[in-house]
């Protein structure tokens, strides 16, 4: 296990754990136009951090609980005639603000907020690594198990119902997967940039994909490249690691879409 003693190796493994779950899930976020939904859930995580510190429970558990509540609340409100983009905007930013205020009330702890806002991937320990990979495995398992049903419900809820599926159930499964990804990603990229790991690999993969499965696989590969490039880049240029990962992903998005535009002539 000497390999895991190296913080760089741990950082890369942590990043990989997050992207192999976030990239395929991110495809659904893109297809279902849930970008803000991801944002709202991720931003609520900071409230989870505050609760975890106040009640002295694990950060992972606190974030998971709050992210789950947020994801389920938002998904149950959707389709009930609310102006969703406004509502999600309100919830995303107010939950972030609530969280920041709540953290400042936690007595006796001087919290390094930056670590939760932008992640602290270089400080990932072995226990964190275990939590990240178990969470990632759960998300991948959920997606694999429900893939076809999720895809049908994403395409059209009525088609899913006529095929004997429940779009409601699939929505809850997606919410659960989203909450899991948020709670394992907070250590890696922080609340502010989690949505980026969901969206950017998927959006970068779109030009090269002819089927949904292909898009999920390409998105995962792009995510993996972003993590490796980001961690190395942060080391070389002495930049914050989480934001560097997202920067690499964003460059890849520009590149793939540029290639697509040129190819189309």
């Amino acid at each position, binding site marked *: 296990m000497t390999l895991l003693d190296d913080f760089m190796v741990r950082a890369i493994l942590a990043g990989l754990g997050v992207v192999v779950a976030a990239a395929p899930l991110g495809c659904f976020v893109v297809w279902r136009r849930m970008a803000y939904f991801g944002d709202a859930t991720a931003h609520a995580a900071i409230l989870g951090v505050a609760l975890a510190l106040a009640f002295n429970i694990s950060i992972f558990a606190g974030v998971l609980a709050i992210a789950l509540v947020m994801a389920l609340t938002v998904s149950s409100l959707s389709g009930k*005639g609310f102006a969703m983009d406004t509502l999600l905007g309100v919830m995303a930013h107010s939950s972030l603000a609530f969280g920041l205020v709540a953290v400042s009330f936690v007595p006796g702890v001087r919290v390094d907020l930056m670590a939760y806002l932008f992640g602290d991937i270089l400080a990932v320990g072995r226990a964190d690594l275990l939590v990240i990979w178990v969470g990632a495995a759960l998300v991948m398992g959920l997606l694999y198990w429900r893939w076809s049903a999720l895809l049908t419900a994403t*395409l059209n809820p009525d088609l899913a119902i006529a095929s004997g599926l429940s779009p409601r159930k699939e929505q809850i499964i997606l919410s659960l997967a989203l909450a899991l990804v948020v709670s394992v990603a907070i250590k890696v990229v922080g609340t502010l940039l989690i949505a980026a790991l969901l969206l950017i690999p998927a959006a970068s993969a779109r030009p090269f994909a002819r089927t949904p499965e292909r898009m999920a696989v390409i998105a995962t590969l792009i995510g993996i490249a972003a993590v490796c490039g980001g961690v190395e880049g942060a080391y070389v240029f002495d930049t914050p690691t989480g934001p560097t990962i997202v920067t690499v992903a964003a460059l890849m998005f520009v590149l793939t879409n540029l290639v697509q535009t040129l190819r189309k002539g």
Partner: protein
Amino acid sequence: MSLITVEDVTVRLGGRMVLDDVSLTLEEGEIVTIVGPNGSGKSTLLRTLIGAVPPNEGKVTRKRGLKIGYVPQKLHIDPTLPLTVRRFLSLPKWVDDDAAHAALEEAGAGHLCNHQMTDLSGGQFQRALLARALLTKPDLLILDEATQGLDQPGSADFYGQIEKLRQDRGMAVLMVSHELHVVMATSDRVICLNGHVCCHGAPEHVASAPEYRALFGSGTHGALALYRHEHTHEHCDHDHNHPHSHEEHA
């Protein structure tokens, strides 16, 4: 046993009464067409039948294990979702290549297998939807304005295909249409809907019913003759068994 029984179903959407005390049954192997003006609740009725809209009052009973092939009126595919026709056919259950090709041929879309769904024309799209619906080997095929966007020969062709499918497979078909004169030849029964069931029965009965004419005018009646000649079905006991209170709706 009937495939679907609808008893006194009332549906309100956003406070508006969309379906008012609607009752109907669908039997095995019959082709039933629902006609009605815009906003008469046709699509809502279909969505109630498949279970997508729970009725506020009344009851929808589906035969146990009933397999429904549903072809929606519109299907928006988000441009971010890459989807070939072949992949679309395998939703939600994986089908092998032979079955996929056979269904596409049957739906008259054999050459479209590798196209992206978003690249299809209106008619091609409807055929891809039909092929997918057929792959589940449905007992009941539900078509919601399947021919909108098709010209008249195109839609006559489409309905011809539906009737052939019914003959080959013995499945029941329920469809919604504006074009009574086109579907006449294919339908065993017609239900005229305007929130409530205005009138129903054999196509020629409905076409000449005062309730139908009040909704659609008598203009369409002239066109019927042109399309009637192929029609050789027996019509026996499709009498009215609904009280008529349509005058105020007409």
